[in-house]
């Protein structure tokens, strides 16, 4: 059942460019990028019990680093990509060390404050970031000589990265480390008494989660060929968190479904309804009332109930 579900999802995603037009293929790419972003945040929120409202920092930072290095330093993608991820991860080491002075609401506020620092920097440090104009004139990489400028080629690139990201995150949460991480979420005090270093487990997860957030940032900047401070904003962080909670935090499929819901409302429905933000609010309220644990666990529950009848 579980394997079948994943296989079906993969088959649908694989076949999408054959049935859908370019508009939907591009929408598909955006959903995949949002899915990697939400899934990385889910490691922290869902499995670690650490609600962050600053995850956009990692998407934005990786995107800005990559854009800045290629525009201002003229470096090629093969060096900007790993360097951007490395830079993002190093900043995450420091931000994690600061944020994890607290847990719960304190942690939320610290992640928010630190991401706002980056957001403010992107706006004000015009010499580096071009401020409100954003960095434009970027290109997509061409791995092994394959151009990613076409919608379909880029879509498959995103799909490959997404599958790799989700697979590695699945391995992560199924490992002893993942089990310990869930333990620190449920009974931190007990975990300490059992010999687990709760702080270090959380810090490593913070850095790992930021690493994948950075990967989604690279995809994001490749897709848009443009980066603006808005990507670092609290709204960007909140959309990710919304995706995680709506889809089902602490589940593998949840953030993917949640990200798809948010992206469809934001990019597709918004073409028909001007106040799409309001609709997003209604959908979210609906989910919280009828499936408080999220869409994926909620549907699973309904399915089990229906099958037993």
């Amino acid at each position, binding site marked *: 059942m579980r394997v079948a579900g994943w296989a079906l999802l993969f088959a649908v995603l694989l076949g999408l460019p054959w049935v859908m037009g370019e508009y939907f293929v591009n929408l598909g790419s955006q959903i995949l990028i949002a899915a990697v972003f939400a899934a990385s945040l889910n490691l922290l929120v869902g499995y670690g019990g650490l609600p962050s409202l600053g995850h956009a920092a990692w998407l934005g930072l990786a995107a800005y680093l990559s854009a800045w290095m290629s525009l201002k330093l003229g470096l090629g993608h093969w060096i900007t990509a790993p360097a951007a991820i490395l830079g993002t991860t190093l900043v995450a080491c420091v931000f994690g060390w600061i944020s994890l002075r607290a847990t719960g609401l304190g942690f939320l506020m610290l992640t928010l404050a630190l991401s706002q620092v980056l957001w403010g920097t992107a706006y004000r440090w015009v010499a580096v970031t071009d401020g409100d104009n954003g960095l434009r004139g970027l290109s997509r990489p061409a791995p092994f000589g394959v151009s990613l400028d076409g919608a379909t080629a880029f879509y498959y690139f995103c799909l490959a990265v997404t599958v790799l990201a989700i697979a590695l995150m699945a391995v992560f949460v199924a490992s002893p480390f993942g089990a310990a991480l869930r333990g620190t979420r449920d009974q931190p005090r007990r975990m300490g008494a*059992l010999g*687990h270093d709760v702080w270090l487990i959380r810090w490593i997860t913070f850095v790992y989660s930021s690493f994948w957030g950075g990967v989604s940032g690279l995809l994001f900047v490749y897709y848009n060929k443009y980066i603006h401070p808005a990507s670092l904003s609290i709204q960007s962080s909140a959309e990710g968190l919304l995706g995680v909670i709506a889809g089902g935090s602490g589940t593998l499929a949840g953030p993917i479904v949640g990200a798809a819901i948010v992206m469809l409302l934001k990019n597709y429905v918004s073409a028909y309804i001007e106040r799409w933000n309001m609709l997003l609010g209604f959908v979210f309220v609906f989910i919280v009332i009828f499936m408080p644990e999220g869409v994926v666990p909620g549907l699973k529950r309904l399915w089990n109930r229906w099958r037993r009848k």
Partner: protein
Amino acid sequence: MTAALSIQNLKKSFGGLPATNDVSMDVAPGERRLIIGPNGAGKTTLFNLITGDLRRDSGAIRLFGEEISRLAPHQRAHRGLARTYQIITLFQKDSLEHNLVLSLLGLSRSRWDAFRPIARYGALNDEARRVLARVGLGELAQRPIGEVSYGEKRRVEIAMALAQKPRLLLLDEPLAGLSREERAAMKELIAGIPREVTVVMIEHDMDTALDLAERITVLHYGKVIVEGTRAEVVADPKTREVYLGD
């Protein structure tokens, strides 16, 4: 011989109110020590200071000669200290087996492995089931904690501590809330703990607990007021004073 646990002039206050007020005590290796005292005497606070859940204000705590009062709780666990909680502190949604696995992982290097599925750690899961069988819960290994009885949860608490083969075991009211039959079974379980393990136990149920203990410490308002063998403590007028009022 070095004491298993040696506490000197330990102090801890909460907002000026002393909870542990200059406590000193030595527990010999292999000893069974009972700590009694009325509510609010500072028994659980003392445990929390020993495990590091609370930081002491002043004083020293030595575990087999090593000063541990500056160490974090997980570091103390790695030096052979284990505890159970008065209020059940288990992983509700996980199976009994998984609870034991988390306990075994705590002292294993494998806890840092982020790339191999935990399901492939056959030895770990086998050991978890073995420990459960030893406390009479083998049949329930796959059941979630939320579905087993209160008495069984108390046994899981002890099993998780014993699985770590500690040198010093702190039991915080292991008999609390149990029925008479469960009490007898629990008493048997505690009596069967090997002598390599030093046991310090807080307990209110004197009838049961007195049989298990060799020496008894009476705490009152964060101070040790009587300490000695069972007979000495029971005969001491200060014990009666604390328990019956003057």
